């Protein structure tokens, strides 16, 4: 049986959108465009639509496949291999941090949990004062956020939070910790809770159903299953981009090569793949900054068990947050953290729960009563939180080294304490920080406080995950601190821009999708004007 929901992507293809699946190509091919946009996530999608609407001939290149609502069946076993980098198991080089990142047309926006925050004022202030991004003020960015909020239906979410999110609100409230509601980029959301597996009703306003169709309607071309391998750089200009066609399952190159020529190139492959493409291409990097200062908002997790059903698999995944602990100390003081709640489905939930055997099975019996709370630690503002580094393996693929410093672990311990206290205040009768040395859940706050205070904070013992990759191609006012100028142009390559989360000179301190939309809408609008003048 097929879905009763109309599929706008299938309809568009039937109506003549230009979509080429590179896995089916039988020979090498060349393409010409005004602008080639590499990557179709938050930055690439926004850029492609703005440039196409400005009358430019746009070619979008995506390593993932084109999947749409007819494929989104809300089953983890299908969704993770099809829609995520490395089957949702992308890891840092030492395997200590698991990274959730999309790999499909629409990028991570297809699988994110719809949380929409403008870039916090203190982050923008920091960028202005420390990184010379003078135009990136709250007022200067407001029109761009407003524009993208309208485009992507980012609004308050009027439906009551699901039980897991409400427990964060309730527990924090009892402790006098302020929470607020999360705005979401949805239109006609059914409140199903499967945002992480691709929205089956097309309610989530991801790039897949908004800007990418917008660009295709204007005659843009979408090339899927094509991996951007290397720019040809001659005399300070990019002359072409070499791509490798991938097999239908995305596992390996087919041997077919694609050569893309354009007046201008925009790199928007995300904060791991963008620096890697530029490193492979030998992009100018006189100050050794490319791929450096990669940020993750590293996350620690606390599982709370409640007498009542929580059903963390039901309903909008993230609707309540607290920024209280981002403001209890200076921006560059001890590490601050944002509190949120995670959706839990069987595979993600069961693999995240530590332990094995009867202890694990015992917790799983109560799976529907578990709430998973997240603390996202804000990296990039302190000398001991200078992030990670993207380098290339021998085969040219990227790897991310991300050292977890004592500064981070001090924050992680505070965050685990905070979450346990909130969960007990909300009525939990058993709380487990996700940590390999927690043999039995703690029964009350006193026990938890004493135990967490001495729990060894070490990688591979304390579970650390991330869903937000940022930095690596920092945009700054000064060439000594960033490879990209405030207009998005890569320094030293006259016709190459970077438009994605890799631009951020620090982490955001909030789920980054709206920051990427707003910043890249601004950069793409400027680029469209400049290209129109030169035409």
């Amino acid at each position, binding site marked *: *049986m*097929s*879905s*009763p*929901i109309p599929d706008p992507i299938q309809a568009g293809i039937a109506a003549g959108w230009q979509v080429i699946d590179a896995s089916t190509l039988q020979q090498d091919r060349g393409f010409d465009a005004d602008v080639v946009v590499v990557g179709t996530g938050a930055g690439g999608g926004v850029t492609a639509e703005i440039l196409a609407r400005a009358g430019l001939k746009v070619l979008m290149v995506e390593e993932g496949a084109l999947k749409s609502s007819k494929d989104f*069946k*809300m*089953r*983890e*076993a299908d969704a*993770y*291999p099809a829609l995520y980098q*490395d*089957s949702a*198991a992308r890891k840092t080089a*030492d*395997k200590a941090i698991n990274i959730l990142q999309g790999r499909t047309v629409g990028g991570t926006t297809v699988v994110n949990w719809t949380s929409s925050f403008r870039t916090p004022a203190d982050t923008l202030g920091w960028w202005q004062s420390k990184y010379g991004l003078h135009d990136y003020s709250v007022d200067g960015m407001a029109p761009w956020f407003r524009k993208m909020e309208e485009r992507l239906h980012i609004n308050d979410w009027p439906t009551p939070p699901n039980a897991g999110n409400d427990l964060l609100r309730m527990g924090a409230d009892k402790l006098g910790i302020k929470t607020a509601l999360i705005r979401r980029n949805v239109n006609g959301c059914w409140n*199903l809770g*499967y945002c992480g597996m691709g929205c*089956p*009703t097309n309610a989530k306003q991801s790039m897949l159903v908004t800007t990418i169709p917008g660009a295709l309607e204007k005659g843009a071309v979408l090339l899927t299953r094509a991996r951007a391998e290397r720019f040809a750089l001659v005399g300070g200009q990019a002359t072409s981009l070499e791509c490798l066609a991938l097999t239908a399952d995305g*596992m*390996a190159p087919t041997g077919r090569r694609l050569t893309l020529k354009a007046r201008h190139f925009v790199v928007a492959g995300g904060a791991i793949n963008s620096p890697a493409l530029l490193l492979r291409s030998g992009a100018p990097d006189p100050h050794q900054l490319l791929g450096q200062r990669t940020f993750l908002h590293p996350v620690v997790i606390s599982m709370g068990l409640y007498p009542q*059903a929580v059903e963390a*698999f039901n309903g909008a995944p993230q609707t309540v947050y607290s920024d209280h602990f981002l403001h209890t100390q200076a921006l560059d003081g001890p590490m601050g953290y944002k509190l949120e709640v995670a959706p839990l*489905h*069987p*595979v993600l*939930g*069961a*693999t995240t729960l530590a332990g*094995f*055997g*009867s*202890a*694990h*099975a*015992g917790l*799983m*019996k*109560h*799976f*529907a*009563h578990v709430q998973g709370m997240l603390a996202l630690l804000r990296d990039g503002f302190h000398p001991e939180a200078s992030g990670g580094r993207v380098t290339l*393996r021998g*085969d040219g*693929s990227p790897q991310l080294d991300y050292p977890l410093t004592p500064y981070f672990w001090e924050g992680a311990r505070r965050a685990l304490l905070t979450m346990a206290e909130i969960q007990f205040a909300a009525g939990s009768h058993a709380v487990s920080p996700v940590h*390999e*040395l927690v043999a039995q859940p703690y029964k009350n706050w006193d026990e938890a406080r004493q135990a967490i205070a001495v729990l060894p904070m070490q990688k*591979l*013992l304390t579970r650390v995950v991330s869903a937000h990759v940022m930095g690596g191609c920092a945009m700054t006012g000064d060439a000594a601190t960033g490879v990209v100028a405030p207009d998005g142009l890569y320094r030293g390559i006259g016709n190459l821009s970077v438009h994605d989360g890799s631009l951020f000179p620090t982490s955001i301190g909030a789920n980054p999708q709206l920051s990427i939309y707003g910043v890249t809408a601004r950069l793409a609008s400027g680029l469209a004007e400049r290209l129109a003048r030169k035409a």
Partner: protein
Amino acid sequence: MQRRSFLKAGLLGGLALAAGGAVYRQLRPAAAERFALDAEGRTMLAVLIPAVTGETPDAAALQAAIDRVGTAINGLPLRVQKEISDLFGLLSMAPTRRLLAGVPAWPEATPEQVAAFLQSWRTHRTEMLQTAYHGLHDLVIGGWYAEPSTWAAIGYPGPMKELSA
């Protein structure tokens, strides 16, 4: 297996795991890069799946779960599939299995021996063995709970039928 033996294994473990993979590849016919679940791998998973999940599937459910773990591995990048091939090889060959995991042939291993092996790697000071534990944990548990027939027992109703068919 005594704790002391594990500590000894720890000194050698990292090196053995790194070198063992290369040795293992030399001893075996050149395999395709894609992970292939062979009879030895199935024998090991038949022991590891109940030990890791804490569940006691019947023979048919166990074989299906073994297949799902194989499918999950085949969804990973080829580079990672190769690492897992090496790990499976080391845990299948008697000398390396005894040295690194302290267990006899998998069908003869007692539940206590298997649990001791898992617990040892889980907190091992050799990072490579710790990451191998996490890999086995996530693959086995992920493969297990991917299957709709496991959901009723954990109170998960599954996605809305009208939209998931």
